[in-house]
């Protein structure tokens, strides 16, 4: 456990299975034992277990840690003639383009803002829907609803963008045709930056709600029926059962999902923004996020150094954020912390 803590540069999915395996309760004792005997003893003692861990460890080492060497690109001037380490060192010059146009703060805020809305609204709605669905007693209706809610998840962003375009396009979009039917004037949605804050969140939820709902639905299924029976006998009505049993039981799932999504809070939903907004500069004030900005900047002036610099900025920010949040959560309740 300690080994992982020191090395985890980027929070990785490896934490999930370990967490899920119910290790946390043992963590304390395990750590103490290790302190006494030392790491080497531990290695010899549990060699079979470590051997089993080795492939996974190698996998992450090769795929996630070794490539981190490439981060050095962020500080060099890319050159076709020289390798990574003999390229000229330029310090922070590659990061300059991020703030040169004076939009870095706005971009960062946009990215965080949208992600917060996605995470909070997404999770809350998913929990609500999961609870409602789990309380349904008609089986075929439950399955049908679940499937219908899940389907948008498979719609690609490219197709979504076409749908959206056909609904909101000024001249012959669905919305304006409908408004004309009722005798109202047309709305120029593609020139209204403020409208897109809601539209983007709306389409994100539409697309992802079904997916996150299934995760919560699975957790709910895992809650023992006995609690509910006992509560029923004590005379708790349905809302009380939900509020005092289901919701608290979902807390750990919620926190794990929250922590995972916080780690990538600086990584916007690139496809969503890029497909819906694309080249429309009119909307950038409210809809531009780091990913789309970086993509557009470097699409023309492709430069390995600058691209790495942008990626590093995002990763570093995400890293700091998840460390902070995890620290706070561990202070409050150790069991819920990721590490």
């Amino acid at each position, binding site marked *: 456990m300690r080994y992982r803590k020191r090395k985890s540069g980027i929070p990785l999915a490896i934490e999930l299975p370990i967490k899920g395996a119910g290790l946390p309760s043992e963590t304390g004792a395990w750590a103490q034992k290790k302190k006494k005997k030392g790491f080497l003893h531990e290695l010899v003692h549990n060699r079979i277990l470590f051997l089993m861990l080795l492939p996974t460890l190698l996998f992450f080492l090769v795929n996630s840690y070794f490539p981190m060497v490439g981060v050095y690109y962020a500080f060099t001037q890319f050159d076709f003639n020289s390798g990574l380490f003999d390229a000229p060192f330029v310090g922070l010059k590659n990061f300059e383009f991020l703030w040169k146009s004076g939009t870095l703060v706005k971009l960062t805020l946009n990215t965080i803002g949208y992600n917060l809305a996605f995470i909070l609204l997404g999770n809350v709605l998913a929990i609500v829907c999961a609870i409602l669905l789990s309380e349904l007693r008609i089986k075929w209706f439950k399955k049908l609803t679940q499937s219908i809610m899940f389907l948008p998840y498979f719609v690609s962003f490219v197709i979504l963008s076409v749908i959206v375009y056909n609904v909101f396009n000024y001249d012959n979009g669905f919305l304006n045709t409908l408004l004309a039917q009722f005798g109202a004037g047309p709305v120029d949605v593609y020139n209204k930056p403020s409208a897109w804050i809601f539209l983007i969140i709306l389409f994100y939820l539409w697309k992802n709600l079904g997916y996150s709902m299934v995760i919560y639905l699975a957790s709910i299924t895992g809650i023992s029926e006995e609690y509910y029976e006992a509560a029923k006998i004590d005379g708790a009505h349905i809302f009380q059962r939900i509020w005092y049993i289901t919701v608290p039981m979902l807390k750990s799932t919620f926190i794990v999902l929250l922590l995972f999504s916080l780690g990538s809070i600086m990584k916007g939903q690139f496809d969503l923004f890029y497909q819906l907004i694309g080249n*429309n500069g009119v909307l950038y004030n409210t809809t531009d996020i780091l990913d789309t900005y970086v993509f557009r900047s470097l699409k023309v002036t492709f430069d390995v150094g600058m691209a790495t610099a942008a990626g590093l900025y995002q990763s570093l920010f995400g890293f700091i954020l998840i460390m902070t949040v995890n620290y706070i959560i561990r202070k409050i309740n150790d069991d819920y912390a990721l590490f």
Partner: protein
Amino acid sequence: MKKKAGRKTLATLTTTALALSLLAGCGGNNSNSNANKGSAGTEGKTNTAATTEGNAAPAAETGIDTSKKVELQFYMLGDAPKDLPIIQDEINKMAQEDLNATVKFNYTSWTDWDQKYKLLLSSGQAIDLIFTADWTQYQSYAKRGAFLAIDDLLPKAAPELQKFVPESMWEDVKVDGKIYTVPATFKEYVTNGFVYREDLRKKYNLPAPKDLATYEAYMDGIKANEPDMMPISLNSDIGNNLHYIYTELNKMVGALPYGMGVKYETPTTVYSYWGSDEQKEELKTMKRWADKGFIPKNVLNIKDTMQDPITSGKAASMFGDNPNRFNDMKMKISTTHPEWELAYSPFGRTTGYATPVHPIHNGFAIPKSSKNPERALAFYQKLVLDKRYNQLTQYGIEGKNYTVEGGYYKLVGTSQSNGFSREGMNGWAWRNPEFMLFDKGFDGVKAIFDELDKIQKPDLFLGFAEDYSSYQAEKAALEQVEKQYLFPLEAGLVDDVDKGLETFMQKAKQAGLEKIQAEWTKQWNAYTAEKGIK
């Protein structure tokens, strides 16, 4: 030792560094602009400068070592034709015998070709031959050392090719005094001209577009008489489809970046187009066009290609396109809607001059990463000068893919059923005017070329290789500002043009416009001085 290891891992590192930067998973959909570039040039007029001596395939190979068998990696943009494996096998049979080499033809597809192209060059992957053009940033890659200088290699590996390409062309493609690409010798025009529906013009008695005023009058007439039709075909690429066409019509030397202004007649006078009265005039014109309903309100979100709306009859005209693509559209319409009529009016009629393509426009280079530069060049010589190689890769197998009737090329079947259409391998760069076969429909393009020949003036400016390493950060920032504040202006979407322009200029200056412009002007002046342009 250390260096060697570094090189080996370079490819892995670059790829992962990119993955790290999270740019990798982009489902970008820019096929529209790419498709446009695809037909950068199809055919044209035989080059008078081309000598005839290259005709016979020289059997005796030159002083290169062919003892070891190699496989050459050949990279071209766009999509591979269906029958490529067959052609490749045929080519390899010959190449094996002639050069003890086989070749693998690789294609990038048009989707995100620009990113792929950049990755191919920067990841250190071994590539022996790659397509170059002004629109793939040949000059700047060459300047930054992505390609191998072939000056010394040419006499050794491809002496015939060296003789075949005129000296002036070798001179024109030089970057910093070195040759990095083998230019195509075929002469054509890719200058723009108005494309419009002639049948509608006649029907409503409208003026024929030949300058801005008549074009606007034409669109007025279309708007009034055909309210359901778009007067002009546009998509979100405003810069290329409105702005640069407007400036071409105003005799700018080319698609200049950073709001620089240089007129063809006065190439040594560099000024800032952005913020000038001239630009204000452009923006006000676009505003007027938008107000009149020519430019759709959501133009920045349209992802169609420029040509589709014309061929499907949704739009009546195009602000500008080149003769080849005009001809393609015309041919397409002639089969689907024979009652429609498409006409073309080259800008040369207004501006008084037309520039044939610069040799940089189509070429093939050997990247630094190539393991067999000699063999690559020798193979490329075969591709250009050996009739068997050339016609096989341009037109496919005679009798199976095409036939020659009365000196004209004829496709067997349709482009759908045939696995190799004319120039199916996008072989614009290795066209050999002596071996070229033309479609009957191409006579239309030839007529336009003939007209432009009469007013031709050389394109002296494409050879300018910009070195932006000193203002790379500013450049990236400025491109953003341009997209956010200038494109809406150029599409006539901003109500208050003066105020909008003021905001744009202020943001652009903040991003470092002055530094970029000063540096660019310095480089431009150095270029014109070096080439003796006055």
